[in-house]
């Protein structure tokens, strides 16, 4: 562990500012620079190890693929989970699978905080009602800007404190952890993508799509084809269904759409 690099104040501030921007991006603008696949390499650049950040970010991306805000429900927060996880992987020299031990508690902590934030913002809607009665256009806009400011400050403060004050403590902890624990977390980390896929399958896997799930699985397991090639094979089937089977999909998805409408409203 002699390669450990200390985090400087400027590096911690850099990560904090990026965390603030990423926190806004989770709900607004939505360029998705907040996903671990982008946040990993950026945190890596700030902390001086872009290659490690690239790999760690990609690993977190795969683990947390299904963690998206469906119908307004808050999943564990991928933004700070990814940023803190990558930072710890770099600073302590761990793999991403091991750093998830540090990342998951924060992802859950932030999830709870965001839920709290959305609850706390509700009373401001009566203020908005008053602005409408007075035709206060700037007031409506400012309520929007205030929300983003709160998000920025919240994410920055958490990222800064954890990375600047927590890194040393984490380094000490890491050397104390026995090999069987880190090995065990490695095993658990390799299994984590299954949870993301499970969430997706639970929503998407209706009877008429099981064949396509198996198609993708078999092409990868037996034929070892790259993901992009398999996606394109899937696209071919989608095009066939879309253009050649005009009436069948209507019948097949009729029930599905009704359910969606009911849940949506």
């Amino acid at each position: 562990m002699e390669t450990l690099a200390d985090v400087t104040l400027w590096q911690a501030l850099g990560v904090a500012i990026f965390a603030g921007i990423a926190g806004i991006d989770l709900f607004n603008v939505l360029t998705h620079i907040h996903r671990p696949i982008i946040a990993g390499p950026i945190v890596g650049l700030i902390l001086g190890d872009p290659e490690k950040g690239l790999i760690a970010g990609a690993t977190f991306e795969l683990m947390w693929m299904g963690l998206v805000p469906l119908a307004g429900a808050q999943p564990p927060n991928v933004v700070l989970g990814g940023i803190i996880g990558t930072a710890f992987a770099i600073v302590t020299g761990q793999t991403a699978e091991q750093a998830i031990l540090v990342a998951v508690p924060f992802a859950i902590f932030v999830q709870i905080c965001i839920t709290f934030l959305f609850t706390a913002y509700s009373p401001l809607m009566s203020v908005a009602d008053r602005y409408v009665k007075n035709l206060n256009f700037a007031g409506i806009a400012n309520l929007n800007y205030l929300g983003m400011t709160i998000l920025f400050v919240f994410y920055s403060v958490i990222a800064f404190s954890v990375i600047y004050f927590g890194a040393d403590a984490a380094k000490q902890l890491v050397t104390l952890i026995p090999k069987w624990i880190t090995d065990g977390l490695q095993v658990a980390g390799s299994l984590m993508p299954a949870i993301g896929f499970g969430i997706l399958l639970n929503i998407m896997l209706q009877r008429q799509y099981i064949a396509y799930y198996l198609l993708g699985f078999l092409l990868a397991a037996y034929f070892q084809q790259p993901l992009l090639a398999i996606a394109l094979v899937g696209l071919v089937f989608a095009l066939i269904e879309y253009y050649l089977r005009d009436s069948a999909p209507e019948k097949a998805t009729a029930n599905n759409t009704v359910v969606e409408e009911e849940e949506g409203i």
Partner: protein
Amino acid sequence: MTTQQQDMINNDVYEDQQTPQVITPKDIRRMAWRSLFLQASFNYERMQANGWLYTIMPALRKIHKNENDLKKSMGMHLEFFNTHPFLVTFISGLVLAMEEAKERIDTIRAIKVSTMGPGGGIGDAVFWLTLLSICGGVGASFSLNGSWLGPIFFLVLFNLVHFGIRFGLASYGYKMGVSAIKTLKDQTRKLAHAASIVGLTVIGAMTASYVKLDSGLQLVREVKGADEPFVYTLQGSLIDPIMPALLPLLWTMFILWRIKKGSSPLRLVLWTVVFGLFCTVLPVVVKMVFGWDIIDPAVLSTRMGY
């Protein structure tokens, strides 16, 4: 007819019934830019309502020169609203066309409410579950090989679709106006169906590629008279010849079954960690109690601290 009923009807009708065309393509683009901040004031009482009003407010001010009409309109648009943030511009384009035509307020509200639900459901399936998984999965597979193409591919492809959809739907929604609703509904059904096919093919492939469960189990026996001990590996000799990635598939199905039974993802994360630790402690315990090597002896000895 009572005065109360008369008032209620009048409340639904704009006082100024003139319908000059005031919305220009520039206004529609401005609305699409502002839609990026739809969820800035998200809250559990009205969800995206304030951001929705923020999105269409400049256009509403242009349409309603009568102050009472503007207040009525803004008040209605501050009611509960929630849809997918990528598809919102279709609804706002549609609504602006109706506002410009001075439709009755309750009609505009009905259109708004009936499009936002399906918009949310379709958007979640198409963008969060399909587009994001494909861009993220393909991008990450580049990144894991150390290629910077990973993040670039992800960001470019995702946002090409994102901004294309956002700005495309804004003018599409406005142009189609009320008459588009029925035909579009038929199209989105087919689109969601096609998207699910691509999505599930990719998730199937990722189950095989990214979920890793190597039991590492083996039987090591010293054989009298032989130099090398006898080694039988469960993975290499039994499981892989039947089906590679069989264990990851079974594990994923187990997780899916637990989710269907109502386990929260959070609890599954914790149980996965417990399972991982159990797997690494088990060989240590077996070695200590029975003296058997059920995994690679070299790995076992580092775990036991030798």
